[in-house]
């Protein structure tokens, strides 16, 4: 690199605070929605055709249902979710002071079950857990994402960013190689998006069901032939947190639909 070119690069890095080479400037960020064809958009746009709404309805019923040996429903503590849960999912994963680390919305729901309902945890990707988190997250539809703003979450955001940038697996590819550097291109014919986590849990036509952000991350890891982290693993939570902070200010769209 020539001397002047090096100066120019440094100047660029200095004038764009916190942005590493390859990262997406905030006004260029786009939801996965904008990468979809008109048919798939139409399914998401209309609640009566969006299959994710069936999960939301299930979640609404579970919200009001007493469970566990405490005999309490979510609603007994939180009341009407339309008020109490508005904007909550836009802050998750959120730092938990007792645990000293960030927890996902799914983990928060299970903590509430354990601590306040004396109920067993719902397994990851089970219908009931997805339904509850879809119902809670739907209350944040249109709300701007703020996850990662908490100063205590910063080291975990940084950990997530490092994981996002790390090449891994037999194919030796990092998330950033596809989602920062090659969005709008096609992997075997399928569009690559910016990996904005705005719509989770979401209905994926390929899965024929609702799935969590962690499920998506695990399948990307399997795709590069890396050993996927277990559900709930700190690394997966950190990645989720980084993705949310990277999408700061973008509106939530749960339950989204994706191809």
């Amino acid at each position, binding site marked *: 690199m020539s001397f002047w070119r090096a100066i120019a690069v440094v100047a660029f890095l200095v004038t764009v605070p916190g942005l590493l080479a390859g990262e997406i400037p905030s006004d260029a960020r786009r939801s996965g929605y904008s990468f979809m064809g008109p048919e798939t958009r139409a399914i998401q746009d209309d609640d009566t055709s969006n299959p994710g709404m069936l999960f939301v309805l299930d979640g609404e019923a579970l919200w009001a249902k007493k469970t566990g040996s405490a005999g309490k429903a979510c609603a007994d503590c939180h009341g009407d979710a339309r008020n109490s849960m508005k904007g909550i999912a836009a802050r998750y994963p959120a730092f938990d002071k007792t645990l000293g680390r960030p927890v996902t919305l799914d983990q928060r729901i299970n903590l509430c079950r354990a601590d306040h309902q004396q109920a067993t945890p719902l397994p990851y990707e089970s219908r009931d857990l997805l339904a509850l988190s879809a119902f809670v997250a739907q209350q944040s539809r249109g709300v701007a994402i703020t996850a990662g703003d908490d100063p205590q979450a910063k080291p975990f955001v940084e950990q997530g960013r490092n994981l996002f940038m*790390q*090449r*891994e*697996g*037999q*194919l*030796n*590819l990092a998330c950033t*190689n596809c989602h920062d*550097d*090659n969005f709008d*291109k*096609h*992997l*075997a*014919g*399928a569009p*690559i998006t910016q990996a904005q986590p705005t719509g989770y849990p979401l209905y994926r036509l390929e899965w024929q069901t609702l799935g969590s952000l962690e499920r998506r991350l695990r399948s990307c890891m*399997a795709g590069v*032939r*890396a*050993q*996927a982290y277990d559900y709930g693993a700190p690394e997966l939570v950190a990645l989720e947190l980084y993705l949310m902070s990277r999408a700061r200010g973008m509106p939530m769209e749960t339950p989204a639909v994706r191809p």
Partner: protein
Amino acid sequence: MARSTVHIAALIAASLAFVPGARAEGLVPYKIISDGIPESLTGSPGDAVRGRALVLARTTTCILCHSGPFPETRFQGDLAPDLTGAGNRWSVGQLRLRLVDASHFNPETIMPSYYRADGLVRVGRNFAGKPILSATEIEDIVAYLATLRD
């Protein structure tokens, strides 16, 4: 004296050319000369017909990124150059080295090194310690790519 120094230098250069990737168990050693691997990894020429089928196979991963003269499939990538004419642009030795270790040409490349089994991070249980392609598969693909002339 001067002569033996040259001799030792040549020996060191030759042993460095045996890339560490090839040290992993089961990988045959190969020698990089200038910007290619002139000798077949298997000692014999590959089969271009099998090579074409391999390039098209999803498990080989080539057409996740590349397109090429493959009218029978719609599912081709556009992360990488079209393979049409690759046999004009590159010698057989260069094509072989590109498959074995594309990072030799471009350290930042996203193209995986297909004949390498170490220095990787968090490789999945089913893939750990193995190269993406076998020496025979590399030779078949090289033989096919060499036929891609405009």
